[in-house]
């Protein structure tokens, strides 16, 4: 089980008692979201739904969006940094 730093964006810090970073143990991004939600109930629903990561949110592992990796099955290693970042997107 990898120990991972998760960066929390300002709008979601209400779930983490104002903390901008938390440490979570997980093997894959999928587990990370479950374990993050166990520690900070309600946060997962803002990030993902049953189809995967919401269009309005991004999860970066290091410098890469997990959508270009293995999405929720992306594997994690010790000392990885995962950044949860709201989307900057839109259109007609």
């Amino acid at each position: 089980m990898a120990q991972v730093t998760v960066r929390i964006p300002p709008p979601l810090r209400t779930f983490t008692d104002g903390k901008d970073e938390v440490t979570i143990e997980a093997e894959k991004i999928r587990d990370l979201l479950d374990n993050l939600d166990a520690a900070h109930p309600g946060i997962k629903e803002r990030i993902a739904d049953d189809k995967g990561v919401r269009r309005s949110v991004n999860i970066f592992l290091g410098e890469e969006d997990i959508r270009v990796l293995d999405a929720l099955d992306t594997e994690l290693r010790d000392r990885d940094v995962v950044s949860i970042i709201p989307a900057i997107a839109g259109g007609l």
Partner: protein
Amino acid sequence: MSGDKPWISGNLRITKEAMKAIEEEAIRCYPSEACGFVAGPAQDPLLLDETIHEVNEADKYHALDPETFPRTSRTYFKLNELRASRRFEEGEKSGRPIKVIYHSHTDTTAHFSEEDAYTFASDGQLMWPCAFIVVSVVDGKVEERRLHIHRPGTNEFEESTLEIIDG
């Protein structure tokens, strides 16, 4: 949130040069949507004087995951949010915060769309500490530009005034 970031409440002034840079980029990208930021000095919170263009990655995401991202760059914009978050941090540290996210619409008005609102507000919270400029390009020419701001406590946005001034 507006306490230390008054620009999210609107009534902004933008220099002619900064507005011209947005419009030239919108025309260059047509019929795709253009996107980027506008920054300004922290000590003059309602002034916008620097346009920063970003790459629209909508087509990349559409090719990668067409179910989640059903639209192409003609009707959608998306930029690299990790790079964006660093720009926001650098802007804060340097005294030149990013105050506006801008994008263009193709062959329609400069309204704030449902998709824009879905992205930029959730549970009544504004997701990025910004106001929003939308420029419409019709038949390759800029038709209008509008400033939109978040209505606090809701997922809705409303228009505000944007004055174009001599630099």
